[in-house]
């Protein structure tokens, strides 16, 4: 804070009856810190704190644009309605299930992809590029493409099965098969993101460790579990946090593939929020659902952060 003290010296002989704002011209370290943090704090308040507070406030209101009556305070009514709404429970369960299946799934596939991409190829860029493509593709495109893949009559999946002499299923006609198709698509789409982060982690592991292990007579298998995996842990945790949060917010792929069908058996919480706010214009109820999803994401993030902290 050399400049700060210099200005203090220059301005020192100012009069005793100073105006309140002069302390900003001659800030103490504390004031300077506040001043420097202010823009970021203001921005965060504007784009995160205010909308979240507004969302929570709206969730306590009866606010439906189709009702023709102005908004009124409803207390916990929206939340009470939610608890006895079977579709809320179904979509929440579907969301949790998708998270439980696709996060470990994407981790395993992503780890495999990263290990493959880290092999000493002569030309590296085609491998890296093919790793990037699923990640670069918009989610809804992936959903639409896979919806055609799994189409019972015109889809490539059933066509291949037919050629192998297996009678394919009508994927989107059954809750379980439709769910499986969605999970497969999500794993395909998201594992490349996991692979990218893990690949970055892999490249920070020094060669010398493996050389030392070889000298000590450790096999490939042992090397993987004793060196690679432990050193990858920070990258894996970061990748898991991102993946879990996006999994809890799953929307695009089931929306484009099945629209939640058959019935509501593949609808997610995010889709139900969208349906209530955008289609039904019931902003009060939609906000209450969104608050639950917000709490869910916060809870999961807190658990992960604690995990990182515990590991030091």
């Amino acid at each position, binding site marked *: 804070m050399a400049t700060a003290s210099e200005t203090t010296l220059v301005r020192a002989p100012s009069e005793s009856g100073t105006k309140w704002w002069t302390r900003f011209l001659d800030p103490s370290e504390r004031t300077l810190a506040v001043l420097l943090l202010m823009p970021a704090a203001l921005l965060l308040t504007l784009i995160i704190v205010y909308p979240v507070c507004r969302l929570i406030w709206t969730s306590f209101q009866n606010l439906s644009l189709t009702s023709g009556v102005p908004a009124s305070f409803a207390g916990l009514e929206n939340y009470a309605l939610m608890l006895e709404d079977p579709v809320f429970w179904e979509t929440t369960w579907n969301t949790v299930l998708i998270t439980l299946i696709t996060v470990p799934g994407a981790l395993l596939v992503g780890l495999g992809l990263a290990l493959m991409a880290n092999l000493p190829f002569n030309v590296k860029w085609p491998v890296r590029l093919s790793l990037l493509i699923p990640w670069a593709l918009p989610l809804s495109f992936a959903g639409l493409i896979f919806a055609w893949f799994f189409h019972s009559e015109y889809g490539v999946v059933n066509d291949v099965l037919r050629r192998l002499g297996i009678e394919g299923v009508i994927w989107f*006609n059954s809750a379980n098969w439709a769910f499986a198709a969605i999970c497969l698509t999500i794993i395909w789409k998201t594992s490349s993101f996991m692979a990218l982060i893990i690949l970055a982690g892999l490249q920070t592991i020094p060669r010398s460790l493996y050389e030392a292990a070889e000298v000590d007579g450790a096999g490939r298998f042992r090397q993987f579990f004793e060196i690679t995996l432990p050193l990858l842990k920070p990258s894996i945790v970061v990748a898991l946090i991102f993946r879990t949060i996006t999994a809890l917010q799953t929307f695009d792929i089931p929306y484009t593939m099945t629209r939640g069908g058959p019935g509501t058996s593949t609808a997610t919480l995010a889709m139900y929020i969208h349906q209530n706010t955008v289609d039904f214009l019931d902003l009060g109820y939609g906000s209450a659902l969104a608050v639950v999803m917000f709490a869910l994401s916060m809870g999961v993030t807190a658990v992960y952060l604690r995990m990182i902290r515990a590991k030091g």
Partner: protein
Amino acid sequence: MNFKTTTTLLLAGAAFGLTASAATAQTNLRVFVSSQHRPDVWRKAFDMYEAKNANVKVTIETGGNTSEQQAQYLNTVMTAKDTSLDVMILDVIRPAQYAAAGWTVPFNEVLGNDAANYMKRYLPAYAEANTVDGKIVALPAFADAMFLYYRKDLLEKHGIQPPQTWDQLAAAAKKITEAEKDPNLQGLSFQGRAIEGAVCTFLLPYWSMGKQLVSDGKLSFDKETAVKSLKLWKDFVDQGVAKKNIAEVATDDTRKEFQAGNVVFAVNWSYAWGQFQGAESAVKDKVGVVKLPAVQGGQSASCLGGWEWGVSAYSNNKTEAQKFVQFLSSPEVSEFMAINAALLPQFPEVYTDADVTKAVPWFASARPVVETAKARPVTPRYNEVSEIIRTTVNAVLAGQQTPEEGATQMEGRLRRVLR
């Protein structure tokens, strides 16, 4: 050129520009048209208006493939209070809902004391659908109803008359598909995907058995009838009359499959007719169209469709837009659209107009169907009602629920919405 002369010239230019625009006072109207209803032909109708009103320029905007997708788009535009859109075409189920949300401007002021008489010119169902608490919230663009399309050639070949009941249809379909031995030939195609069309799928037999879903604004759900309705469709799938993946079939899939020659009977809206007669149709001149079959012992019932013109409450040109809509909703445009786009007229007399019957001969017999078609429940919360019905139909057809389970769930959820 020095600074002074430049400024003077610029100012003079600006002043000239201002007076010029004041003299013509050009109004730009932006109109949303559903992409499935021949925007190209509507464009010609708009050109007619531009020719008569030199100061009005109309821009067309289209989007979305289905009624729900279009509603989603318009919902976003309206909640954002966007001023860029002046006129929008709305599915018959939406004017009440848009009026409740305050998104459309009533026509009462423009129409004056004559409003009631003005509405009497239309088919009664449309006068009703566009009037909410005495306010005229939109004007009809065209009428629509569901019909039974059938393969005239195949029915003649096997000596079968167009069916009067759903049982007759099942028997006829089985007879024809068995005799034809074509593995691609389906007996009946209808809408089983969770889209708006599936609401009508459920209501057709339900209404045919004489029951109503809503009477006097109250839910009058008859569970036994609902079970029978769901069972009727599910039986078609189980008996092989409809294909196994019918839960994947949307309105336009039915149209495409029938057009490709793979369907004997199809439940669809009137728009399909024009496409069946098109150059790339495999069934050109082989298509018959009749009113929908009834449930044994019941009356034939059809679902009332049609689209309406509404003026956005956020438009900057409300008066001009309302005048424009009055033109679009006139017998003149109705006749033009009937002849050129095969859209059913909203005026009773246009059905029997000589030019119209020459271009689309079956319109003469379509009028009684449209006149007796039933409207889906009119409620501001229609989107929720629709979602409940269509997901249940979809779940039952996919075999996820039995018709009994479906009807029970439907009743419970409908009760919550229509309290």
